[in-house]
């Protein structure tokens, strides 16, 4: 798989880099957090990103998208990760739009994609129910009586669930938690009667929500894809999610690493730069190696999405597991190597430390992905 960005993709990355550095630096993220912003991201920034075409990168051309591919989108997400940029790009486009692209009816796509491209509407995927990402454990009930469908149960950790206009809800329509069969995907307005949304303030300052469905009535037209076969749609959506989240995380890793290396070159103790100590040099060099390995895994997985490879799931799990572990390592080392300053809120290092932990849980932690990888390979 080609892991090298082409001219156009490089240009997009540079554009995103320049734009985000001037319009959405880490200070912007910090302000959102300190203000306890109700939206969790800047609507103005999102409007500007939409104008730049960022929301349309992977959407099909027939619905007004750019069909530009995941290597390009990954490059943008990486830049967002560097700046800790909060935006609904991941929840709305990577997860939401993918679900509709892969499973939605023509009518659903016609209705939603043009609005998505213009930034007039946002989506969120309500999937997790417990402490850990475990799609097959879905228990939120979808009861079917003729043409009347009812949703009952609770979802947690819904990325941007508090602000999204529409929710894609993963439900259980038959079987028991743990079964692959019997999962159905439905599309509902967040404001539907019986839906209760509570914003959860996560430590990274972003927007996540707890959403409870109290006997929410919907119509069969709101199903996304065939009933009980939801996993067939969901799996590729979650693969895209894991890979794109890994791309965002890679940017965060690189940034917090670069800042740490700079600090090692500046900070003096015992009359020398602390970067001259071999104990720190070797740890820094090991991190550099791991980051480059992660970069290879992420680029390869993004390319696999663009090439519709058959082993996308394996590559997704490989990339997410490696990046999860790497972000934890590098953010911990960043705090340690910054010494006392590393544990102050004044420095941005702590913001990366926190984003690392939240993003590790989004789309599955390393244990989840290693277990899935092993199961996919039959051992």
């Amino acid at each position, binding site marked *: 798989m*080609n892991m*090298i960005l082409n001219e156009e993709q490089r240009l997009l990355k540079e554009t995103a880099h320049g734009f985000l550095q001037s319009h959405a630096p880490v200070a912007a993220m910090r302000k959102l957090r300190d203000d306890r912003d109700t939206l969790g991201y800047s609507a103005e920034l999102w409007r500007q990103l939409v104008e730049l075409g960022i929301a349309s990168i992977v959407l099909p051309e027939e619905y007004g998208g750019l069909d530009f591919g995941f290597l390009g989108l990954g490059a943008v997400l990486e830049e967002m990760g560097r700046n800790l940029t909060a935006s609904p790009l991941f929840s709305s486009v990577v997860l939401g739009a993918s679900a509709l692209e892969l499973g939605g009816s023509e009518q659903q796509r016609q209705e939603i994609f043009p609005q998505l491209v213009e930034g007039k509407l946002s989506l969120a995927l309500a999937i997790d129910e417990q402490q850990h990402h475990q799609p097959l454990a879905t228990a939120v009930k979808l009861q079917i009586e003729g043409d009347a469908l009812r949703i009952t149960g609770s979802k947690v950790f819904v990325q941007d669930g508090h602000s999204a206009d529409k929710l894609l809800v993963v439900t259980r329509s038959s079987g028991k938690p743990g079964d692959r069969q019997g999962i159905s995907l439905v599309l509902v307005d967040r404001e539907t009667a019986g839906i209760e949304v509570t914003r959860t303030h996560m430590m990274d300052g972003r927007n996540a929500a707890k959403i409870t469905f109290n006997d929410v009535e919907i119509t069969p037209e709101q199903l996304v894809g065939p009933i009980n076969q939801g996993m067939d749609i969901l799996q590729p959506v979650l693969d895209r999610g894991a890979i794109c989240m890994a791309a965002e995380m890679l940017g965060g890793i690189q940034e917090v690493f670069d800042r740490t290396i700079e600090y*090692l070159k500046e900070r003096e103790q015992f009359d020398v730069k602390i*970067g001259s100590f071999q104990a720190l040099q070797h740890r820094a*060099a090991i991190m550099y*190696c791991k980051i480059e*390995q992660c970069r290879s*895994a992420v680029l390869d997985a993004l390319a696999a999405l663009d090439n519709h490879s058959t082993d996308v799931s394996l590559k997704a799990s490989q990339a997410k597991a490696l990046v999860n572990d790497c972000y934890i390592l590098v953010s911990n080392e960043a705090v340690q190597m910054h010494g006392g300053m590393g544990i102050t809120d004044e420095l941005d290092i702590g913001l990366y430390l926190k984003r690392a932990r939240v993003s590790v849980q989004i789309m599955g932690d390393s244990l989840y992905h290693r*277990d899935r990888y092993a199961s996919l390979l039959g*051992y």
Partner: protein
Amino acid sequence: MSTLEQFRQQTRAWLEANCPDSQRQPIVKEEQIWGGRRRTFPSADAKLWFERMRDRGWTAPEWPSEYGGGGLNPEQAQILQEEMQALGCRPPLYEIGLWMFGPALLKFGTEAQKAEHIPKIVRGEIRWSQGYSEPAAGSDLAGLKTRAEDKGDHFLVNGTKIWTTQADKADWIFCLVRTDPNAPKQEGISFLLIDMETRGVSTSPIQLISGESEFCQTFFDDVVVPKENLVGEFNQGWTVAKELLKHERKLMSIMGAMAEREEEDLRHLAKRYIGVDEQGKIRDPILRDRVTRHLMQSGADALTNKRLYQLLEQGQAEPNLPLIMKYVSTTEVQRKDELLLAILGNRGLSWHDDEFSDGEKRTVQNWAYNKAHTIAGGTSEIQLNIIAKRVLQLPG
């Protein structure tokens, strides 16, 4: 059709017609063909395959044809390698001269030196050994003490070299020698070529923890070396040494990458030795997780190698990536070896006893042998120093 595509088709056709079936089986150590005056062939097929490749210069595909090499450009050489891999063709020749010494000589040697030595390497007629480390100069290679005194029409060499690869079977040895004891360490070193048959050269094999004796200690006792055997400038041998080390580390990372993959598939081995639960999963969840960690890690190493190659192919030099490959691949090989021993349990504790299968014995012997990987060609610690200083530009 592009000329490269044409080259691919011709190459494939030639390999199919000329590579005997027996030479398309996975190679075992005992059947590797090493060059030299005393070379032997394990079979008639092996000899035939070697000779056919040699006659095309494909034992050294990228070397200039005027010295007997294949004269291929990097793209063609890559195609040849890919086609050989696709058919499973064995490498026709194993030779340090080919991997490490030749590329350095092509860069720094005189016309006469190249004309004398390069064709013999390509044709597998001379086997080379490496004289770098000394008992008191390992990681601190530039601290070497073997002396070469300028005696007017010749050098007189005295001292000892260690880890001289198969010096007991080699015909010539390239050595780093001290030619100016008063200059700063790296500036008083010269690069000399010495015929192992010269009076005063003797070798003694070193038995390793794996039971093998791949390395020797070589002694030089008043050895007379002609002046024309100096490669590069007098006292500037360190420049040649570094060029050669670059090739050695590349070789080590390729060997590491191969060793990461060459074993019988880990997951099948783990299933067989550990057992499976009712869902077909390896019964011990911790070992199952370790298998997965290794597969992901070695997968990422292979991808990084591939990315490096793709960058080169597109003319985007990435000088930093090669520097990490030796460290990451050799580290991962050892992690895999430890995992294999954990999987084998008490079946992974012997390489002598006939009670154990060949696969079990080989696994254990490799485990011991591969301890060399993170030491030879610059220890892991030296590699990390290089990354810290050259890539991250950390001070000190």
